[in-house]
């Protein structure tokens, strides 16, 4: 209140409807206000998605960490999007989020609401590519205070092929055949490049030299892909402390979502 009346002089002299400039030195010497509150944290964990001819697999470990602590051994990073009610009955889209878990939850809730509202307003299910673009817009809308997450969205497209989209925290996105994200991404992604996209693999029978043809990636079979995912995670668990406890896989086909859980090392 004192600051309110300070520029109304008691001597009855003209004064002004805004505060007069303070004496310069005292203002300049004051240290800037420090904000010690940092609104983000990293909850570790890793996710991975691979799309095939008629299916998409999204997987994630279930460990949640803060620093060297294990918060819990079961906190899913995979979420069904759309479908009926809070149980997502009949849903055919899966979102995985890794990074800051609280933002991940908020993002999942927003996308889920959008997909449900779409069906309510248009009377048909939202396609995966529409959902993918909407997710990009949601992330971009918060560009200046981003959702600190790496998202992967999976489903089956209108031709029945597996669809997989990966995102950065501010909404840049791309449709891909495989993508790893999170703490173990740097361990898993090179393995996927080699095993899914057959990078650095050449025709063994061909003669040595520059003409040696590279192997062409073939559509993956579901059983083989599941084993690939399991191998990727068991290896990441060995070398990264924030990955482990359990592996949750969701396999999306035209018939719906199948969920598979398998244990990982808990050390």
């Amino acid at each position, binding site marked *: 209140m004192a*600051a309110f009346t300070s520029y109304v002089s008691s001597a009855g002299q003209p004064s002004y409807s805004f505060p007069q400039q303070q004496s310069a030195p005292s203002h300049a010497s004051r240290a800037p206000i420090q904000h010690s*509150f940092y609104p983000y944290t990293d909850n570790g964990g890793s996710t991975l998605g691979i799309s095939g001819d008629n299916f998409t697999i999204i997987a994630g470990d279930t460990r949640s960490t803060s620093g060297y602590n294990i918060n819990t051994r079961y906190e899913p990073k995979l979420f069904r999007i759309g479908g009926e009610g809070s149980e997502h009955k009949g849903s055919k889209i899966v979102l995985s989020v890794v990074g800051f878990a609280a933002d991940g939850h908020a993002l999942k809730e927003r996308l889920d609401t959008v997909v449900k509202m779409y069906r309510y307003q248009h009377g048909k299910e939202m396609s995966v590519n529409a959902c993918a673009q909407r997710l990009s817009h949601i992330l971009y809308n918060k560009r200046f205070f981003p959702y600190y997450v790496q998202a992967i969205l999976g489903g089956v497209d209108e031709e029945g092929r597996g669809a997989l989209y990966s995102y950065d925290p501010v909404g840049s996105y791309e449709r891909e055949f495989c993508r790893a994200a999170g703490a173990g991404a740097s361990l898993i992604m090179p393995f996927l490049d080699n095993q899914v996209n057959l990078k650095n693999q050449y025709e063994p029978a061909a003669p040595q030299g520059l003409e040696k043809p590279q192997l062409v990636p073939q559509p993956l079979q579901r059983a083989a892909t599941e084993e690939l995912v399991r191998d990727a995670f068991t290896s990441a668990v060995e070398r990264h402390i924030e990955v482990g406890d359990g592996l949750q896989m969701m396999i999306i086909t035209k018939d719906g979502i199948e*969920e*598979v859980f398998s244990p990982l090392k808990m050390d």
Partner: protein
Amino acid sequence: MNHLPQAWGRPRDDIYGAYDHSYLPQTHANTHPTTHTQSPVVTGTSVLGLKFKDGVVLAADNLASYGSLARFTDVKRLKPFNRKAVVGFGGDVSDMQYLDRLLNSLDVQENYSGAATTEEDDGEAPAATADGEGGEDKHKAILDAKNLHTYLSKVLYKRRSDFNPLWNAILVAGLTTPPPPAPSTSTSSPKDTTTSKPTGPAPSRKPIPYLAYADLLGTTYSSPTLATGFGAHLAVPIMRRAVPDEAAAAKLSREEAVEIVKKCMKVLFYRDARSMNEYSLCVIDGKGVDLQENIKLEGESWAFAEGIKGYGTQTV
């Protein structure tokens, strides 16, 4: 006109009177900036939570510290919400008191609005008539521990997103009704390497124990054993040795659970400098909330300390 360029073209107070700030938002009228909590002031230390067969045990000591000063020694940090949910608060005590007021007003609101009767509560209806106090209440759909945790975590996440955090780490303990059986499209793979989910929905709709964490960032997680603050380092390993997973929690008796939590409170008192030897302990199960607020630490002995050597300047 005068020599102050910033006054030119503006109405003079001696002619038009002082500028009326009253219509402006409070933040503009007030020449002081709005202030947000940048660090907690009076704080509570760890809260412990442990699930057992048919309920949850929650514990926290009665100390509110002002930095390293043991300032208030009778602060109750376990707040019962209703017969299905209790909240344990760590972190800033004034923010705890704010949240407590918020929860009280929420409770009043919930009880005034005519909540619909639910078939879920019918299972426990015979027991309901036994206690006179909540007979009518039993037929209403009340907020359970899971609902309350969702509410609180959203409050906390909103406040962190406004850069005005509520500086708390909380545990919500109690009971919840599991969701109906999983959707038909979601089938489990018949592979032999797979096991069922650790937190798979139970076949019956009987209320099950619920324990979850939320903090100032809006981070949430759930586990059969949980602790905030120092307890995450000291108590969780002790509790996890007894209860490594949900299956072990489902076998644990109430007495065993209380014993483990009491042991953890003792370890925390020995090793956490911001703790005290008087604490609150709460058991939430199908019968309701059993809160004891002035438990003294039993069998305290510092004999072990004599054997500790090799810290600091000690050269023996």
